[in-house]
């Protein structure tokens, strides 16, 4: 038991690696939150002084977080503001926005400004002028582990919620078809119910596999593309908004940060300024 706890401690809290993954997630998250909320938070939507102040603070902190200026402070500020917005706006309270709120909070716990940020650019400029080598893009990524746990739990609990006959029989999938694609007589299509049942069972199986399998490198290379296909289908077939892109972005939490770093390095290999 102690060894298991030690292993979990090392896995969760002693994960020092490249900050490029968290840098990418940081930028992606802000863009997703803006696409979800920004149109409802622009200043003309609430002209009370408190509303203007709060909405301005939202754009200021998330904007700073996106470009990566004073990132430690701006990302914590953004996490607090996003939580406030989520709680005061009834219309924001969806599961997909809750995921964004949680993940912004977790990313604020990492040194996400050490890569792809103005902070990084300023640090490079300082080191250049003082003749020192570039500062490292390395930090403790325990927040990235929390993101991985969060993504797993999204899969696990959504899978758990579907464990009843109404769903597994395919009936609930049929209802979704009738709800969103009404206009045809689906009942008359031979095998339609069986097809819906297969879709339902496949979805639940995949959700449970993704909940645990993404941690295992051997399974990850198969599960990740399968998960992306699943999310893209959700995106194309249902009004699911930012959820698909958020989940695909958060898959970065399962890929070793050093691999992401090397992958990006390799992409830039051989590039010379004209």
């Amino acid at each position, binding site marked *: 038991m102690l060894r298991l706890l030690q292993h979990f401690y090392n896995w969760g809290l002693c994960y020092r690696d490249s900050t490029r993954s968290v840098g990418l997630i940081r930028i992606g998250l802000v863009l997703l939150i803006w696409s979800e909320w920004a149109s409802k938070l622009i200043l003309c939507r609430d002209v009370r002084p408190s509303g203007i102040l709060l909405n301005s603070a939202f754009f200021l902190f998330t904007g700073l977080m996106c470009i990566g200026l004073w990132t430690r402070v701006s990302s914590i500020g953004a996490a607090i503001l996003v939580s406030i917005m989520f709680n005061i706006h009834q219309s924001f309270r969806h*599961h997909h926005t809750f995921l964004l709120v949680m993940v912004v909070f977790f990313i604020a716990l990492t040194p996400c400004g050490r890569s792809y940020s103005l902070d990084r650019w300023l640090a490079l400029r300082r080191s250049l002028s003082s003749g020192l080598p570039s500062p490292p893009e390395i930090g403790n990524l325990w927040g990235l582990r*929390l993101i991985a*746990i969060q993504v797993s739990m999204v899969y696990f609990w*959504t899978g*758990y*919620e579907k464990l009843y006959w*109404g769903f597994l029989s395919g009936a609930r999938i049929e*209802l979704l078809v009738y*709800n969103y694609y*009404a206009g045809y007589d689906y009942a008359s299509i031979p095998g339609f119910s069986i097809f819906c049942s297969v879709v339902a069972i496949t979805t639940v199986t995949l959700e449970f596999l993704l909940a645990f399998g993404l941690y295992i490198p051997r399974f990850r290379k198969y599960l990740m593309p399968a998960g992306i296909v699943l999310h893209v289908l959700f995106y194309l077939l249902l009004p699911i908004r930012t959820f698909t892109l958020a989940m695909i972005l958060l898959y970065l939490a399962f890929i070793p940060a050093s691999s992401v770093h090397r992958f990006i390095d390799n992409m830039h290999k051989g590039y010379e300024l004209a």
Partner: protein
Amino acid sequence: MTPANQYQSEKTAMEEIAESKLVIVCRVVAFTLLTLYVVFGPFYTQVLKGKSNLFRAWRMYHTRGIDVCDVQFYIRHPDGRIEHIDHLQVLGRDKLLGSHHHSRRIMGETDVLRVGQHIRQKVGAVVDLRVNARIGTRDGWKTLYVDKHIE
């Protein structure tokens, strides 16, 4: 080891040393609490069926499709012959297929009867217009009407 790499490893080592025990303890406590919240938070709402703004469930589309109806309208002729009616054709299929899904679907008992009345106006008062309908529930389809006469 190149100077750049040496510098990076030295800086990383210095950072590790610089982390005080208090920071590490705080991190352990925060990580444990947040992990417990993320893992077991939904347990309260999804397994124990509690209601809370603090502990949120991961339920997706669990109410979508409930009350949606699958209907079949038909005319029963005096000679016993059944003539099926495509209600979408009556309501204007081309226009409906291009419209929002809220306009295309039939939701609930009253909507079935509303569409029935619409068809009744089109087919006239003398014919024997009937409907079979089933309605979506959490557990799947439930029969709503069997051979119901539309007044």
